């Protein structure tokens, strides 16, 4: 089954009206590329194969990371189109999509908050994929409570010296640059640190339940001296930057999960149509039909929440709560859908990694980029504040 389905075309029609045909052409072309070049490598990546660099390279060459940025360099496409592209990428290989999603969030941080010198030095390298980036916010003892981070950056005559540790960092070990958040005298600040900086080291790759194609590790800073030009934006505003970068990234992680769910659901539906038991197709049994209806409805709902949050962003409106809603719903939905899919396949679902890996992949994203719990705090906090 192709990755770009009539349901995607209809979503484009519903949201983008007359402009949809150009967008559909771009997404269809990406879908064909993903089907022919990425999907066949996905099982090997899940098995721990080393090929993610090559897969990422091909997607960078296609222009995936250029989509949401303005020309020159970018393709000036609406964020919702980028979000649908990441859904398709998530269907093809979730680990690659996540790795690139994190990277593109850093590119956005540099583009939005970096000074002219940082932008000139890094932005084109990032969106072309010549340099790979990692986003280093979470620490061993502060994940959801990011503000209480213990990594420190101390001002020196020519720059800063960073000490501390960041945990569960996607792309760690292979990234060329790290977008690092640290406490300073003025509050929090963000820095772009080269891999080769003396004092920066990465730990062993962490063994993970899912998303096994991507690398995740600890990043340590020991008297890591960096020049002042590597400060992103203003000292003291780092946490504000993190929140803005995470808003967009949460939509993308939600979209990747919609893609994961769509891929798993497609397999379950095809299986249900060809597997016979009790003299009829599995898909014709009432309890299977209930699952099909629920999965279908939830996938559409997740996609629409991601596109709704994207549209608010495109229109320059506040979308922090909607981005959180999109991520909470889509990531939890994907875990639910993939669980149903394992149930449809029964013993084969539990033993075949091509089925259960979707659940393993989805499971991460109810945790990364803001757990479901902390995002519910954000959503409810705004509701309660608004009702006063």
């Amino acid at each position, binding site marked *: *089954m*192709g990755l770009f389905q*009539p349901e995607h075309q209809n979503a484009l029609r519903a949201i983008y009206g007359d402009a949809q045909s*150009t967008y559909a*052409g*771009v997404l*269809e*072309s*990406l879908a*064909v*590329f993903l089907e*022919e*070049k990425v999907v066949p490598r996905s099982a090997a990546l899940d098995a721990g194969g080393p090929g993610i660099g090559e897969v990422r390279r091909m997607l960078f*060459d*296609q*222009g*995936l990371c*250029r*989509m949401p940025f303005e020309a020159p360099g970018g*393709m000036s*496409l609406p964020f919702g189109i980028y979000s649908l592209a990441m859904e398709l990428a998530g269907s093809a290989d979730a680990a690659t999509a996540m790795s690139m999603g994190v990277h593109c969030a850093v590119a956005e941080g540099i583009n939005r908050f970096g000074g002219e010198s940082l932008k000139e030095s890094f932005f084109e390298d990032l969106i072309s994929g010549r340099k790979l980036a990692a986003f280093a916010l979470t620490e061993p003892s502060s994940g959801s409570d990011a503000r209480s981070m213990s990594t420190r950056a101390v001002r020196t005559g020519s720059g800063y010296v960073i000490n501390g540790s960041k945990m569960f960092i996607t792309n760690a070990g292979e990234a060329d640059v790290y977008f690092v958040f640290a406490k300073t005298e003025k509050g929090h600040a963000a820095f772009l640190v080269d891999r080769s900086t003396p004092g920066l080291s990465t730990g062993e790759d962490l063994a993970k339940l899912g998303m096994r194609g991507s690398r995740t590790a600890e990043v340590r800073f020991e008297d890591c001296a960096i020049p002042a030009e590597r400060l992103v934006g203003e000292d003291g505003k780092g946490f504000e930057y993190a929140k803005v970068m995470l808003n967009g990234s949460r939509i993308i992680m939600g979209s990747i999960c919609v893609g994961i769910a769509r891929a798993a659901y497609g397999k379950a539906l095809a299986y249900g149509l060809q597997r016979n038991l009790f003299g009829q197709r599995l898909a014709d049994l009432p309890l299977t039909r209930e699952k099909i209806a629920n999965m279908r409805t939830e996938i559409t709902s997740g996609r629409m929440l991601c596109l709704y949050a994207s549209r608010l962003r495109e229109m320059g409106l506040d979308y922090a709560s909607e981005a959180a809603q999109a991520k909470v719903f889509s990531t939890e939905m994907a875990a639910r859908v993939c669980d149903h899919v394992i149930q449809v396949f029964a013993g084969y679902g539990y033993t075949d990694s091509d089925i259960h890996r979707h659940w393993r992949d989805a499971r991460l994203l109810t945790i990364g980029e803001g757990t479901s719990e902390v995002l519910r705090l954000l959503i409810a906090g705004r509701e309660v504040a608004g009702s006063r």
Partner: protein
Amino acid sequence: MNIVVCVKHAVDESELKADSAGKPQLQGALSKMSNFDRNAVEEAVKLKESRTGTVTVVSLGSGDWKKSIKEALAMGCDRAIAVNSGSALDALSTSYYLSRAVRRSGPVDLVVFSEGSSDTYQGLVAPMTAEWLKLPFLGYVRKLEVGDGRIRCELALEEGERVAEASLPAAISVVSEINSPRYPTLLQVMQASKKPMEEVSLDSLRDEEAPRGGVSVAEVQVVSVSRKRILFEGTPEESSRMLVDALKKEGLV
């Protein structure tokens, strides 16, 4: 060198669904550029890139057939002629209108087709179009060289490999082993919609040579092949002996 490449917006056979009686649901079926035509476009664009010239993509179809034309433009074709057929035509009429569209494109050195379409795979339109254009035709080309007003091709024929030459202008059909089609970047896909595309009707192409009548498809059915599903159990020696005995019994060896 002016090249025309002809592509078909074909039913996407990988997405074709059958009803409960096993009949393919052609109404509303998804379509895309015929897989083999991607090789034809690639070869045309490669030829253009190795010398000066233009590639014009010509496609006859209806509905959303311009999607395939845009894909060819994204791959590197320079301009397009979109022939709106309104409905499906048979091979004779298709080839006739394609030949008129090729003429409309201006002076041409080479017309490139694929070996057949990935949905019906009749392989008729390429040689028929060449005949309408009174051009020499070399079919099933797997390798080609162009120079000194001639084209030299290695042909992958059922009876084996052959080498053939023709003077230009000529028409060829290529097999899929001739190249690996490129994937246009997403930016090239976006830019394709800005390239010139002329839409023409059948009426505007028709002249006194237009074929009358033709073949109409009454119904498409699935041919089901039943298997005997005989399983041989035992050691490899035993089961291989049983297999040979069964093949002898069927009169196959």
